Every structure is written in structure tokens, then in C-alpha cells.
């Protein structure tokens, strides 16, 4: 990132890379914290915290797993999230986080306050105070019991009551005695029972009708059995009462039981019971102290979880409401980026988001119009380009198929275009490509091209035409070219330069030269041929008539013979000239190839080194047999004359799809390199007695047959090939 360089695009990109990385880990971090809290508040097995703790733990586990799932999905999902979802997640996480931190602080503070409150509630002083209060209450009860027991001890050996339970006393007297005692002791009720637990007499405060006989309790029976005074508490409809039992002991054993009831003072009892109740509640609270603290913690935690969940839901709804238009906008932007300009956003609100949506719709509308205009322009351009390409194709095809070389040079002297024909004619090197400087490239044998261009460039006229020879070193020959140049006017088009057109007129020049030579030959033959015959006849007449008259026959014979021989040689030379000048049109007919081979074999039978290889007898060749025979004789004669007796000479024929070929090979010394290029020129001969017309005539015969005469190799072996077509005028031979 080029920080500080002011490159906003780069900075934004780096921030985007860093931001999502932390956000991706946020759910996992929150899940980890939640799991840690869950472990910390997990209910202890011995605790009695109730269902709430398990609800909290379950809710936290559910939240942890949901966060874990969301976090893992975030990490695994590498694809581009839905537009707006990331912002929504940030808002929700932010809101929950904002609420979670103070909630956790409050939770911790509340827990501490409860702990401190517990210490205050269950203070030692309170504990001691309650103990003392309870002791007071218990002392009151003990006092009552002791007083009652002391009173009852005085009646254990009471003779009246013993007599009464023994049945030795009247009921009325007994009742009166009991009434006196009850009155005296302050009891509410006094009853006498015999050993059979049958009530003997009884008195109580109030009406006697309410006096009902109750069965003796276990404590009463125990008192009677053990002979001890006993007391117990009883709760009745009128309140609590202390019940006392005194066994009546006769001479030897227990004979009865005195049962008395004393109503406890209501106000004191109420206070005592209140003390007992408070003490019990306090102890119960103390007993459940840990559970209370845990319950409080879990209640707080539950409230916190509910608040966080509600905050999350509200945050989610709020974030969804807030991010939905942004998500739509982002999605629409993505579609615009992908090229869909028909997208539109609903303009639902009048706030900033609505304004943004309207601006976006306007932007896409303008973009759509511009895109349509661009597309139309592109179509026009494409159409024009197609036309241009079509014209270019036609031009290139024309230039490619043109046998005339074309060079287009711009105003700076650089080649803009050149066709294949100019390469073939001038054998241009590889550095001749478009954009090459013409003057720099025209070096060596191509100097004349550069000079021609230079002359055209600097002359005043618009056109220029020149003929000159270009040497072709690779083929050791010259090519005669006709160069025509024209200056391209800048006013006609945007391009200004020069057009050079180059034609190979070597064949034309040669034809013209041949024609001139033929005319010379015809005139020479006409002028020379006529006197030769009288000269020869005169020389022969001189030899016949005057030989006997001369003294030196030898000299005479030599002279006359020389005249005759030279005249004959001149006649043959004139015949060749005549042949070259008036070559007849070939009379084409089907000729078996073997026939010509057989004739050659017969003709050169005397030469032992000559080998004629016959071919398939069915091979035919459309040709003029006399002219072809003349060519073959010429080739064989050249081979024989150029070779010694020990050098092999071979003649054979080859048939291909389109050609019939006669090959003549000899293993002689071969042809000198300097003579190769001029071998088929007329009047060129390496032999002292040759006219130099044999190969020229042979080549012309081959060309008249639409074939060719080739020098396949100049030496080792020297190889000539006469190639004639198998089809003439479109018909298969």
C-alpha cells in the first residue's frame, strides 16, 4: 500500500483486505467467550439452582453453536457475500457488542453486590441475636414446663385424688376438689384417670358441657408407666396449651393419672412463635445461601441473555431495514458492472437513501443512452470497417494475383505496401517488409530501385518510366525490368507518397532479341545461301577437271576440299538459321514413348557407352515426333561429343500425372558454371564448330509443346530433362 502517497484506490483496497479478516473471526471470538462463560456458570452437581440455570446454560450453548456455525460458514465461504449482508452483520455484532459489554459489567457488579449483601445479611451479630431471641423463647417454654411440673409433683401422693381414682370418693366431692386445685394453680382444665385410662372426674374453665374426655396420649401413658411427671405442648383451636401429666402413686404403685392443661399466654406465645419462625427462615436462608447467590446470578444472566437476544433481534431488524436499500444498491451496481444497464431501484423513501436511489436511476438511464449511442456508433464503425476490409481484401487479392510488382512508398520514403510479385521479380531480401526505408534497403544489386525512386521523388513530373537490369546473384543471371513510378497526390486522399510498378520484361526482351536475330538470320540465309551452291559446284568442277593439270595434287586437293567443306559448313549454318527463323508449328499426335526411345537406340547403337532404357510400351505422349526426335538427338549428340568412350550415357523416360519426361544423363566432365546461365541462349556455344543454336532450338521446341527443357544438374552427372505435358488443349493424352 502506498500510504501517504495519496492513492485513495490503493488505500481503500488495503482497508478492505484487513477489515473482513477481523470480521470473519468475530463470531468465533464471541462464541469462544460465550462458551467460556457457559463453563464458568455451569450448575454444580450438588447445587440446587433449579431450572433457570439449565435454561441459561442451554440458551448460551445454543447461541454458542449458532455463532460457531456462522463463524465456520464465514471462514469456509470464499464466495462474494450477498450485497449488504456484511454491513448488516457488522451492525448486529456492533449493537450486540455495545450492549453485551455494559451488561457483563452490570452482571459482575450485581454479583459482587449480592455477595456483599449476603455477608451483611448473614452477619454474626444477626446470628447471635437470633440465637438469643430463640433462647429467650425456649426459656419461656422451659419455665412454663418447670412450673407445671413443680406444681404437679405436689399432687403425686395426693390422698384425695388417690382415693378418687380408687373409687373411694364421691364424684361430686372429687369434682369440687379438682375445681379448687384448678382454681388454685391457674389451670384451664384438670382431669383424673384411673389405671384403665377411664376419666374419673374433670373440671375446666367455662361450661362443664364442653368437657369432653380425650384419649390419653403416648406421653400420658409413658408418664403413668414410668411414674414420672411429664409435660407436652398441644395446639388447639384456642391456641397453644401446655399439658401436664402427674402419675398418682398409691401405696405401692401408680393408681391413676392427673392430666392438667394450661393455656399459654397468647401475646407471649405469638412473639415466641414469631421468633421461632424468623429463626427458621433465617437458618433456611443461610442454608440456601449459596443457592440464593447462584439463583440471583442466573436470574441476572437470564435477564442479560434475554436483553441481548432482544437487542440482537432488534438490531437485526434495524440493520435489515437499514441495509436493504444499500444491499439493493450494491446489487444493482454489481449488475451495472456486469453490463446490465436496465436495472432500476425502487425509490421508496424520501430520505438520503431515496435520493441515492433516484440519482442511481438517473445515472443508469444516462449510461443506457450513452451505451446505445456508443453501440450505434460501433455498428457504423463496424460496417465501415467491414467495407474497408472488403476493399482491402480485394486490393490485396488483386496485388497478390498481379504478376506486376507493386511498391507503395509513403512521403517519408518508407515502404507501406509491396506484393509478392515484386519479391519474386527482384528476389527481395527478408528485410524488405512494410515500414522499411526504401533508400536504405536499396543497396547492392537493388541500387537501381533506389535511384529510380530518388529520381521520381525529385523530378517535377508526376510520372517516370525506366528500364534497367537487376542482377540476381543467387541465380547468376540478370533480370530486365520496366519500372514505372507515379506520385500520389495528397489532395486526393490523406495519403501522399509514390507508387512504383515493376515488370519483368526479360522474356519480352529476349523474344524481341530472338525476333531480331531471326530476321537477321532470314536475310543472311537469303543473301548467303544462293552463292554457296555455285561455289561448291565450281570447287568440285575444278577438282574434277583441273586436278590432272596441276603439279601438286596434294595441295590442290586440300584446297578444293577445304572450299567444299567450308561451303557445306556454311550451308548447314544457314539451314540452322533458317530453322530458327521459321520454326514450324508442331503437329501434335499420340506417339508411343518407346518408339522414340527405340529410334534413339537404333541411331546411337554404334556408341557402346550409350544406354537406352525402355519404358512401359503403353506410355503415350502427345507431341510432334519429328521435333521431339530432333531435341533428343541434340541432347544425345551433345552428350556423346562432350564425353569420352568410357563415360556412360543414359536415356530413359519417366511418366508422372501431368508430364512425360525424357532424361539424358552423362557422367562426363560437366558444364562450366559460367556457361550454365547462357546455355539456352542462341548463338552461344562452347564448341568451336557449333552454331550455338542447337539447345536454343531444342528449348523453343519444348516451349512450343507447352513443356520445358531443364538442366537438372550441370555435372556428376550432367542431366537434361525434356518435360512435355500429358494433356493438350484440356484433353487426356
Amino acid at each position, binding site marked *: 500500500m502506498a500510504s501517504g502517497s495519496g492513492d485513495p484506490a490503493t488505500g481503500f483496497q488495503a482497508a478492505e483486505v484487513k477489515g473482513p479478516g477481523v470480521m470473519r473471526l468475530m463470531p468465533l471470538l464471541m462464541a469462544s467467550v460465550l462458551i467460556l462463560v457457559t463453563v464458568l456458570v455451569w450448575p454444580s*452437581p450438588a447445587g440446587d439452582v433449579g*431450572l433457570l440455570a439449565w435454561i441459561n446454560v442451554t440458551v448460551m*450453548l445454543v447461541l454458542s453453536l449458532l455463532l460457531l456455525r456462522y463463524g465456520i460458514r464465514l471462514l469456509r465461504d470464499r464466495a462474494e457475500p450477498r450485497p449488504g449482508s456484511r454491513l448488516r452483520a457488522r451492525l448486529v455484532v456492533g449493537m450486540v457488542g455495545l450492549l453485551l459489554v455494559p451488561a457483563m459489567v452490570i452482571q459482575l457488579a450485581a454479583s459482587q453486590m449480592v455477595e456483599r449483601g449476603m455477608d451483611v445479611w448473614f452477619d454474626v451479630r444477626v446470628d447471635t441475636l437470633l440465637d438469643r431471641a430463640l433462647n429467650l423463647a425456649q426459656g419461656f417454654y422451659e419455665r412454663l414446663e418447670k412450673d407445671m411440673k413443680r406444681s404437679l409433683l405436689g399432687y403425686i401422693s395426693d390422698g384425695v385424688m388417690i382415693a378418687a381414682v380408687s373409687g373411694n370418693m364421691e364424684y361430686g366431692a372429687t369434682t369440687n376438689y379438682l375445681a379448687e386445685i384448678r382454681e388454685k394453680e391457674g389451670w384451664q382444665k384438670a382431669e383424673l384417670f384411673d389405671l384403665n385410662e377411664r376419666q374419673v372426674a374433670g373440671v375446666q374453665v367455662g361450661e362443664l358441657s364442653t368437657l369432653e374426655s380425650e384419649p390419653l396420649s403416648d406421653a400420658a401413658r409413658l408418664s403413668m408407666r414410668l411414674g414420672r411427671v411429664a409435660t407436652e*405442648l398441644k395446639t388447639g383451636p384456642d391456641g397453644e396449651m401446655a399439658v401436664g401429666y402427674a402419675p398418682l402413686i398409691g401405696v405401692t404403685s401408680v393408681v391413676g393419672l392427673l392430666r392438667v392443661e394450661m393455656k399459654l399466654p397468647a401475646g407471649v406465645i405469638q412473639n*415466641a412463635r414469631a421468633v*421461632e419462625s424468623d*429463626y427458621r427462615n433465617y*437458618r*433456611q436462608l443461610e*442454608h440456601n445461601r449459596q443457592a440464593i447467590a447462584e439463583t440471583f446470578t442466573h436470574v441476572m444472566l437470564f435477564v442479560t441473555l434475554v436483553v441481548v437476544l432482544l437487542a440482537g433481534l432488534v438490531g437485526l431488524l434495524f440493520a435489515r431495514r437499514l441495509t436493504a436499500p444499500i444491499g439493493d444498491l450494491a446489487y444493482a451496481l454489481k449488475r451495472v458492472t456486469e453490463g446490465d444497464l436496465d436495472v432500476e431501484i425502487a425509490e421508496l423513501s424520501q430520505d438520503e437513501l431515496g435520493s441515492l436511489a433516484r440519482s442511481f436511476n438517473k445515472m443508469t438511464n444516462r449510461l443506457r443512452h450513452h451505451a446505445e449511442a456508443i453501440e450505434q456508433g460501433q455498428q457504423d464503425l463496424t460496417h465501415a470497417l467491414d467495407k474497408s476490409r472488403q476493399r482491402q481484401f480485394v486490393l490485396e487479392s488483386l496485388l497478390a494475383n498481379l504478376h506486376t510488382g507493386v511498391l507503395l512508398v509513403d512521403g517519408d520514403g518508407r515502404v507501406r505496401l509491396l506484393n509478392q510479385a515484386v519479391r519474386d521479380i527482384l528476389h527481395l531480401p527478408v528485410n524488405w517488409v512494410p515500414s522499411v526505408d526504401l533508400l536504405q534497403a536499396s543497396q547492392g544489386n537493388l541500387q537501381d530501385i533506389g535511384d529510380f525512386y530518388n529520381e521520381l521523388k525529385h523530378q517535377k513530373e508526376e510520372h517516370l518510366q525506366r528500364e534497367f537490369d537487376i542482377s540476381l546473384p543467387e541465380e547468376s543471371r540478370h533480370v530486365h525490368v520496366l519500372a514505372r513510378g507515379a506520385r500520389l497526390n495528397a489532395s486526393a486522399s490523406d495519403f501522399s507518397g509514390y507508387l512504383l510498378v515493376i515488370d519483368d520484361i526479360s522474356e519480352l526482351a529476349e523474344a524481341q532479341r530472338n525476333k531480331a536475330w531471326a530476321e537477321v538470320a532470314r536475310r543472311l540465309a537469303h543473301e548467303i545461301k544462293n552463292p554457296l551452291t555455285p561455289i561448291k559446284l565450281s570447287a568440285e568442277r575444278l577438282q574434277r577437271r583441273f586436278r590432272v593439270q596441276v603439279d601438286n595434287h596434294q595441295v590442290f586437293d586440300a584446297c578444293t576440299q577445304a572450299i567444299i567443306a567450308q561451303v557445306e559448313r556454311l550451308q548447314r549454318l544457314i539451314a540452322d538459321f533458317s530453322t530458327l527463323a521459321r520454326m514450324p508449328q508442331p503437329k501434335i499426335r499420340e506417339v508411343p514413348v518407346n518408339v522414340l526411345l527405340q529410334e534413339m537406340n537404333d541411331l546411337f547403337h554404334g556408341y557402346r557407352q550409350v544406354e537406352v532404357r525402355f519404358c512401359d510400351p503403353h506410355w503415350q505422349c502427345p507431341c510432334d515426333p519429328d521435333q521431339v526426335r530432333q531435341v533428343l538427338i541434340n541432347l544425345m549428340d551433345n552428350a556423346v561429343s562432350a564425353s569420352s568412350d568410357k563415360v556412360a550415357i543414359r536415356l530413359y523416360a519417366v511418366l508422372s500425372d501431368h508430364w512425360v519426361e525424357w532424361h539424358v544423363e552423362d557422367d562426363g566432365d560437366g558444364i562450366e558454371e559460367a556457361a550454365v546461365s547462357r546455355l539456352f541462349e542462341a548463338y552461344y556455344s562452347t564448341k568451336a564448330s557449333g552454331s550455338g543454336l542447337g539447345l536454343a532450338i531444342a528449348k523453343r521446341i519444348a516451349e512450343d509443346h507447352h513443356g520445358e527443357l531443364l538442366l537438372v544438374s550441370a555435372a556428376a552427372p550432367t542431366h537434361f530433362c525434356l518435360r512435355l505435358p500429358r494433356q493438350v488443349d484440356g484433353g487426356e493424352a
Partner: protein
Amino acid sequence: MGIELPSFCCYTPAVMMYWIRFRWVGALLFVAGLAVFVQPAVAADDAGSLQILPDASVIECNATLHAESKAIAVALKDGITGTTVWHFQVAKVRQYWLNDTIADISVTRRVKPDLLSRSWQLVDDSSGISRRVYQLDEAVHFLSSLEQFPVLDRSLLTNGIPYRMSVKVEVHYGEFKQAWWSDIWHPAQATLQQDFRLQK
């Protein structure tokens, strides 16, 4: 308490697809179930003892809870009401299937202290009988032991067949109101069990 996990071999493809699609929900429910239902199991040797006393006509037992005796004594001394709930279950032991429950009974015993008179009222909620004692040990013994408690009639059992008697003891402090959800989160203080086989 044993937990029977679901067997996947008998699931149809549709159920499997449902399970795969809602595997997170399933995992959550499973964890929540573990959290609620996994309760601490106290070893029988430490928690108490159970002795089966087959009689000629009745199957009785002696059951004692050792684990909570001190806690019960402290609570009763402090005036807190103590309640013990004894859940008896007699089942025929089956090797490859759940045991067949034959008897399922509950006994609730409660001790209400009276701090003023230093006495404890023993109440058997099952029979409605109550009595008052003045010794703490007696009250603790009342809550933490059952002696010669008749569980079921012998005629319901078959000689020679293995049976299992299980006793789950819950101890509650303070006012106790039995409710259907009491067992859900209040764990048992002890679970005692004894296998037996009646002889001819």
C-alpha cells in the same frame, strides 16, 4: 440414569435427510438434553445401603441413606423442615430389552422441628401417621432409613427369576410441594439398587 442414544440403522432416507438438514438443531437439542438430564450418580456404597428381606408373603426391605445424615441433622437442628422421598421400583431384569417394571411406589417422610419445645414431629405422608420426638437422632433416623418396609406382595414375583429393586432417595429442605416437574432438575441424593432372585 441411562441415556438411550438413537440408532441410525433403522432410519429411513427421508429421516436421514431430515437429520442431515437439521443436524445443527439436532446437535443443540442433544446438548440441551445432556445438560438437563445428565445428573450426578452417587455410588450406592457411599450413599446408602439397601437390603431386601423376602418374607413369606411380602417383600420387605431395609434402606438407609448415609450421605445426607449430617446435613439432615444440621437442618433439623436449625428448625428447617426436612423431607425425604423414597421412590421404590421393582423390575424384572431382561437382558436384551428394557427391564419390565412390576412395582413403582413412593414414600414421603417429613420432620417438622419445633424449636420452642425442642421437639420434632415425624410425619409419614403416605400413611398420615405422625408423632413427636424429643431426640434429634430419632428424627434423623426417621428421615434417613426405612426398616422392614413392605414393598410389594410376594405373589407378584416368580421364583428363580432375577429382579432388581431400585430406590431413588430425594432429600428436600424447607417446605416441599410435590410436583410433576420436581424430578426434572432436582437430582436424587442417592440411587440404590439390589438384584435378587426368590428361592422356592
